């Protein structure tokens, strides 16, 4: 009995450009790590599927033979199924753990990269300043660059709670005017052309992509997890634990 359709995991490849100029070394093994994690997950997936098949078989068996089974046997049988399920659950938990780990890893890299980028930018700026170049173009360039960076640095996926993030849309809005004129030809295409991913995960009660400050529900099983401050009527980060409206409701019910 499959109530929910199952979907296969797409084996995706992420081609990450590896440049090792600044701190590139850390990035180098990221693809490997990613791949390892994903193969692990896939493995777990397969095992889960197997277990599921097993469960189905057990269920069939049970159904066909309940009539003749004594109560102890029934219990035993059901326990078998139960244990299979618990295995499945373990696998699922592992997978979630793995996914979270992977996320953390990528996130870490991103943060490091951002830091590097910032440093790099500063160096560049200093270099420019040292050379005493003062033309308006130069100034514009520097300015634009700094701005571009700043925006870029706002992690797009939700980073930490209340990290500053800019939605790609916002980013675009903010950037385009400046970039359209005067800046380096490459600049605009760089930051702005990061397309809005239609599959970008959505969050919050409003089912929008992440932007601005987000707050995470402290219920680990919260189906939504992240919320825009505005959507939950928050202006500042609340103290202590915070639960989303839905979780609060559920809690009350219980």
């Amino acid at each position, binding site marked *: 009995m499959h109530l929910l359709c199952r979907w296969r995991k797409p084996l995706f490849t992420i081609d990450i450009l*590896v440049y090792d100029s600044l701190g590139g070394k850390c990035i180098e093994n990221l693809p490997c790590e990613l791949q390892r994690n994903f193969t692990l997950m896939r493995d777990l997936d397969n095992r889960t599927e197997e277990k599921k098949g097993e469960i189905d078989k057990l269920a069939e068996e049970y159904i066909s033979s*309940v009539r003749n089974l004594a109560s102890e046997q029934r*219990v035993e049988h059901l326990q078998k199924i139960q244990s299979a399920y618990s295995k499945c*659950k373990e696998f699922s938990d592992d997978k979630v753990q793995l996914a979270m780990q992977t996320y953390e890893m990528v996130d870490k890299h*991103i943060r490091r990269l951002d830091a590097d980028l910032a440093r790099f930018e500063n160096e*560049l700026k200093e*270099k420019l300043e040292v050379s005493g170049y003062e033309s308006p173009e130069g100034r514009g360039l520097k300015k634009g660059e700094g701005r571009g960076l700043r925006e870029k640095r706002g*992690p797009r996926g939700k980073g930490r709670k209340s990290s500053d993030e800019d939605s790609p849309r916002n980013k675009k809005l903010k950037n385009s005017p400046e970039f359209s004129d005067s800046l380096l030809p490459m600049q605009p295409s*760089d930051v702005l052309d990061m397309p809005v991913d239609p599959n970008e995960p959505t969050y919050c009660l409003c089912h929008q992509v992440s932007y601005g400050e987000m707050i995470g529900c402290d219920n680990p099983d919260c189906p939504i997890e992240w919320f825009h401050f505005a959507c939950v009527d928050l202006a500042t980060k609340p103290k202590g634990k915070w639960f989303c409206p839905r979780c609060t409701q559920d809690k009350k019910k219980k």
Partner: protein
Amino acid sequence: MRRLRRGCRAGVVGLDMGRGRGRGRGRGRGATVSLRPPSPYRLQLSPSRETLTYAQAQKMVEVDLDGRLHRINITDPLPVITEDEMMAQDIVECNSNKENSEQTQSRARPGRKPPNTKSRRRESKNSSHQSRRSGSQHHAQSQTNSSQQPSHHSPLPEPTFRVLDSLCPLDAPPLPASYYRFIEKTGEEQDREAEYDMDEEDLAWLDMVNQKRVSDGHASVSPDTFELLIDRLERESVLESRSQALSQSAVDEDAFCCVCLDDECLNSNVILFCDICNLAVHQECYGVPYIPEGQWLCRCCLQSPSRPMDCVLCPNRGGAFKQTSDGRWAHVVCAIWIPEVCFANTVFLEPVEGVKNIPPARWKLTCYLCKQKGRGASIQCHKANCYRAFHVTCAQKAGLFMKIDPVRETGVNGTTFSVKKTAFCENHSPVGSRQDGSGDETTEGRLVGGRGNRGQRSYTQSPPPPPRKKTPKGQKKGKKSPARRSTVPVLLVPQIPSHRLNKICTGVAVQRKNQFMQRLHNYWLLKRQSRNGMPLIRRLHSHLQSHKATEQREPDEKLSAAMEELRYWQKLRQDLERARLLVELIRKRERLKREQMKLHQAALELKLTPALILLRSTLDQLQEKDTAQIFLKPVNLAEVPDYLEFISRPMDFSTMRAKLEAHAYCSIGDLESDFNLMVSNCLKYNSKETAFHQAALHLREVGGAILRHAHRQAQSIGLDPSTGMHLPDSPNKHGFYQCTWEDVDSLLDPVNRLHMSTEEQLKALLEKLDLVTSMRSSGGRTKRIRLLRREINTVGYKQQRSQLLNGKEEEEEEEGEDEKDNGKKDLVENGPLTSALTPGTDDSPPTLEPSCPALSPLPGDAPPEPPVLGPVMAGRRSPGRSYKRQRSSRSGGNGPSDDDADVPETPTACKQEEASPDVCPSETPCPPTNASPLTGVGRRTSVLFKKAKNGARLAKNKAAQLQNGGTTDGQTNGLDSPADVPKPPSSTVLPASSPAAPPTPATPSSPSPHQLRSRGPSSDSEGDKTLPLLFKEEGFTNGLGKDKDDDSDAIFNDQKQSAPPPPKRSRGKPALAKVPESQNGDSGRSMLLPFDSATELTPLDLVWAKCRGYPSYPAMVVDPDMPQEGLLHNGIPIPVPPGDVLKLGERRQKETGERHYLVLFFDTKRTWQWLPRDKLLPMGMDDTVDKLRLMEGKKPNVRKSVHTAYDRAMVHLNHVMNHVKGNLTFNPSNFI
């Protein structure tokens, strides 16, 4: 080169563009409108602008047609009219040219949006009839239109087609704009290809060269090669000039406009620099309203970059020049200051006109500064009598006071600035201006002449005209001269050294390369020269400028490398971002999958073991109802070692759960039976007043409903009991829930139920009750619920009664079964029931079971089950009772009981006290119970003790099985010889119990507790209570006497004589009328009604009297017939009821036909009241009951008054008892 000072260009440009765009839009709209054929349709007479609101105006488009202004609402659809239609229109107009004018008018109207109410109103007022007419005309007109148009041209175009012989695929349709992107080539890319495009001149030259070459037998040079080579040459020259320009400084921070000598720089009036000569001028001063894209060159660099200019009006060189109308040049400043000269165009400030108008006298003036005569025109000092003349530029150079007055005289004659200009010679300059320019500035405002040094460096004196040799423009002298000096790009078409030439042409295969290259080079030089040294490729030049700005090439390269790197990093960052998104998605998916797994499991479970799940949920619900968790765990046998003696099959929730999980239950029925077992165990073991007992009762009621619901659910789901799975076919779910009021009502009518047995009736009623309660609430619902409950109650009674009857028989047979107990009970109750029924209140459940009604919020529900419970309880009670008895003997009985015991029967008393264990042992392990209660207070077991008071009855029952026969005998025997039979003693122990003993067999617990309670009072007035139901009335009358007379004795007697016990009982527990009945039953007095037992309340009994609107209040029953002179009760005077009270009582009794008791409240005023029996509850029998009553009041002050009254009552009791027995001390406080 155009440089912007203080970087305000962007803003200006932006503004500009904005303006341009705006204009464009406006034009666009105008265009579309004008495209519209000037048809009379829909053009409206425009309402005047003033009448429009702003919003309306925003929605209007104005069209000027034939000199009339039309406004069209932008929301109105514009019909597209083809030429044909136009023609048709015209024809129609021709046809009907009689009324032509009117028609057009009328035609115009329909489409028109009502202009505005005002105008329309005016119109209608003036010519309402006219408009009507015109309207009709229009109508006709439109008809004619419609009829004519089709004739003219068919409305539907006919399709035409032709067959193509060959199909040539069309170009793909243009993709949306988003697919195109402009990618700018990088510098390198551009460097790689030739940018230069040949023009006709080049072609001609190349042709010539090629002809020659061909004639010489050489291959001709292709145009491509030519272009490439020219391109390279250009590049070379750029490099060359760049190296030359290295020394040029970027921006001259303190540059000043060489026209006004001011360095002010506003956004709207920036200082521009010529890209070649580095001339600095204000936009306004040089007439450059818009800053051009790219290069900006001053006029002279643009026109003749190579030649230095000479001004017609002065001898000085350098500065900002403009051409005169006759092709010569003049300084802008000169043109400004010399009055006869003006600018033809005052915006662009060119050309300079009126040079010819300068009078010869002016030409002849001698400049006192440069001493030159005849060179240029001079102006004179504006001082009235001063005739000193000077050239404008010389004056600037010398820093003379020259002021342009901001007072603008708007005599715009197309001539010059309408400005007042004043210039003074050295001598007449206003004070201080000479020395200190800045001082001037502060006082005078804008002083041109104040900046001598500025002027000085702006101009150089041109050499005398004839010897015009030294071209080098040393004009700009200032400090920055080195920078300025290089502004001689003029003829500077850099000569490219030959080795470079060779290098350039290395990649090109041309025969006779050198020769060709030489020629080409020369040609190129000439070409550049002919273009005033302008580079042939603009981009390179501007590029050069920018690079010049970025100083060296190297840092630039470094920069670009860094940029490159940055770009990579950014790309990497993007990729990572994407990766993060993906991972996040994966994480979400995994979470979902986990959820799915859980759901899957639940679903499978539901599929495999639906019964189990139903059972589980039912059990959960049941357990939930057991809020005190009394039934959660098995009874701890260590605490209650005797438990098993009474309970053969202990049961509790945890056991049930275990069984459930082990698939031991196949159906709800199994679960239910266990549940019932559990409840009945509890009821059996615990005496009625204990919390456990009540909790059990409550649980039974609530649980019953849950179980019924579960049953129904199971039925509707269709479970296979053998497998615990769903039936293949779901049963028809017709309905339980489809029930109408009619059904309910019909069921409510007893006649309709005649065919059913009482049990069936009960069941049906219960179901209906469930059903109705599940319905939406409404008046009908609550009413029916009430009716149903009442009905259920009565049916329950009936059933019980019948059981009682049966029980009796059984009893008579002396069977020791539970049933017997029931039977006895029933017997006992029988009487009471009938009586109870007769007295009337259906609701008064007390008849059934005293506790039940009181406890159950749903009286209706409770009764239904009783049938089942009845027996159970009976059985259970018996043990409980025994306990109680012991307990009571011990704890409760302490004070009075002891006394009582002593008084009545020493042996029994002894037994109670010391040998209470012994007493009970026969029946139940009394001692342990005693012990246990202490330890396990609050547990199910602990409460047993209290119950023990009731025990008498219970004891019997307990004994029931074993001693059933015995008990009955025992009763009789016991009465005779309490010592012999344990029960009798126990019963005897408590005055009440003693009577109970005999009754016990007969009646269930109800009486017993009362008896216990009565014990206290009993001491006082046992005798009173002894009144059997039959004698109720008499009892009252007699009661007094009796009470006083025999307390203990009475008891004794009672006990000993089967007959007496009943009275006791009655007295002991009025509420538990059953007891007496039971006694009756035993003794064969079936006549006694338990209810009457209530009536048995004898005068001087203490009671809880419940008046409407008040909580129960301590009161004393008083015999209305007491002697008027008053009487003493054990020495305590009893107040005499006033006459009016007595009368009231009589009246009441008559009215209601019920017996009322006269009660005297223990309030401060000692008020009187007549109350029916069911409003009275004996006091002092049971602590818990008393406590409950004490807590009944909702308001604190009410409670307090009840408390005080209670204390008073207790004091009274004490006194009475003391009188009787002497030393008994009663401490009321311990009750509270």
